[in-house]
């Protein structure tokens, strides 16, 4: 039965998946609440795509998955109707034009064919309507996939490496779109190994070798990792060695002293101490800029911690 009154959009409970003897997923359990924005993080081969495909009902598996209360095996059609999915590489019948493909997908999804054209317009593909799907570039394919995922305005969106083949302009457009959808209340599950989505998410699940090795809000995970932040300094001419000394006495490390600016990494607790040292008597630097630690680039530390546990 539907659990639409529940606060949970996605329930993954004890999910395991094997390919012969090889275990691709091992006892994965987590939930995504309605309106939540969850990142699925992990290096290549961690099991992210397998988990996403399992959630979409493409794999046989052990355990239970429910989308908006619909069991994805017993009520798979209803579960998938609630979901908009953009695969890592969007593929559809290559002989069709974008418009023909969009209309076929609209019919399959029970949407009006005209709404397919509206969505194509929303992602800037109106001029490519007559183009063969075969002739689309990687970025255009992903935009096509995104438009089709949004056809029925589904409340739950699942993206597998959405920024992998999109250029910078496309990435910015994508981020703007997901932010707009998030404000409208959509729920997200985004599998990625590296992207600029860390600030967007409010939850992260870290996978490694098919296991869930960490789970929590990106800020919590960063605290747990005790991730270093990057600071860029422009030393006053002739005072570089004093700057290096100030960095080291604050617990930091100079990673690039030759370039301008000087690049420094500093643990979260050492940031204020470093600033005090730099501006205590007279200014040692002419400019300071900081880059906070990001969950997408810091999860490797979580993995390093987890590898030891898995190997044991």
């Amino acid at each position, binding site marked *: 039965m539907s659990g639409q009154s529940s606060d949970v959009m996605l329930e993954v409970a004890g999910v395991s998946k094997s390919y012969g003897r090889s275990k691709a997923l091992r006892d994965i359990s987590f939930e995504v609440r309605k309106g939540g924005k969850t990142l699925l993080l992990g290096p290549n081969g961690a099991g992210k795509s397998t988990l996403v495909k399992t959630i*979409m009902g*493409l794999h046989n598996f052990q355990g239970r998955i429910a989308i908006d209360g619909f069991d994805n095996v017993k009520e798979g*059609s209803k579960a*998938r109707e609630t*979901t908009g999915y953009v695969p890592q590489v*969007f593929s559809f019948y290559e002989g069709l034009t974008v418009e023909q493909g969009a209309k*076929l997908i609209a019919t*399959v999804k029970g949407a009006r064919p005209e709404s397919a054209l509206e969505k194509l317009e929303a992602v800037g593909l109106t001029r490519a309507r007559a183009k063969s799907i075969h002739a689309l570039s990687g970025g255009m394919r992903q935009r096509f*996939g995104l438009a089709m995922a949004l056809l029925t305005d589904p409340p739950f969106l699942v993206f597998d490496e959405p920024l992998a083949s999109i250029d910078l302009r496309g990435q910015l457009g994508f981020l703007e779109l997901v932010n707009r959808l998030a404000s409208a209340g959509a729920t997200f599950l985004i599998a990625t190994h590296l992207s600029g989505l860390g600030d967007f998410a409010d939850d992260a699940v870290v996978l490694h070798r098919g296991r869930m090795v960490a789970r929590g809000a990106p800020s919590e995970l960063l605290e747990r990792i005790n991730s270093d932040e990057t600071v860029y300094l422009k030393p006053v001419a002739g005072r570089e060695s004093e700057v290096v000394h100030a960095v080291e006495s604050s617990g930091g490390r100079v990673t690039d002293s030759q370039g301008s600016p000087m690049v420094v990494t500093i643990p979260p607790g050492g940031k204020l101490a470093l600033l005090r040292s730099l501006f205590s008597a007279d200014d040692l630097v002419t400019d300071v800029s900081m880059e906070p630690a990001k969950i997408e680039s810091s999860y490797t530390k979580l993995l390093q911690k987890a590898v030891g546990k898995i190997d044991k």
Partner: protein
Amino acid sequence: MTSSPLLALASYSFRESLRTKWLVVFTVIYFLVLVNVPFLLLVAEGALSGSALNSYIVYLGSVSFPFLPLLSLPLGALSVADERESGTLQYMMSTKLTRTEFLLGRFLGMLAATSAVVVGGYLLAGLVVANVDYAIFPSVGIEAALSLVLNFIMLSLAIVISTVSKRKVTALSVAIFSWFLFVLLSDFGASFGLIVTLPNGTLAEVLAAMVNPVETTAAFSEMSLNAFGPQVGPTVEILKTFFGGGTTGPHTAMLLMGLSLVAWAAMAFAVMVYSFKKSDLA
């Protein structure tokens, strides 16, 4: 475009199949083979007797039944495997479409396209025959109906091959091997071995002779023209031994063969649906 997902997919599948190069090439060859122009010209000019048309009908079956699986087996074998390899299958199955709807849509489209080739070929042959002797037209109809049944069976089996194969190259290889198995090897291998090891004149031998649907279809066609006539193949010979001559023997044998073909069609279709529903699609 139709609003039913199943019909929309079937319609796409039909159009896509018709555009397949293999289907186009096959159709041209199939039509040329079925309409045996020199033979029919000779009959039309009176160089051969009217009864020679019977030989033409036998010829239709003998070239159509072994040749037809070469259309449905490769076409069906590439369907699911190709879509799985390209990622289209994963995308389609991530929509609200059920596995059964998807499979039926694809199957019905391909069935309609391949059946159109069969019907077209026989219609052409039938029209030519009707010009010479209209009375022979129903016999062409029986041949066409048998070809449609065989096409249904082979297409179902091909989709099973496509579903269980991880790669389309594997699927195509298995499909081609299956054609050899049904058309050539079965005579020397499995069914021959079964028949010679089973006691003569038993039901087991009769059933073993019907293991191969291509052979059963050919035997059915042969009997629909000549009953237990003088020139019969090994399968009909076995049936003749078991059922004996007279008037009821051939009818019972044909009923059994008809049931065997229906059973083949039902089983192949059921296995196709079951294997697709249970398979990993990514």
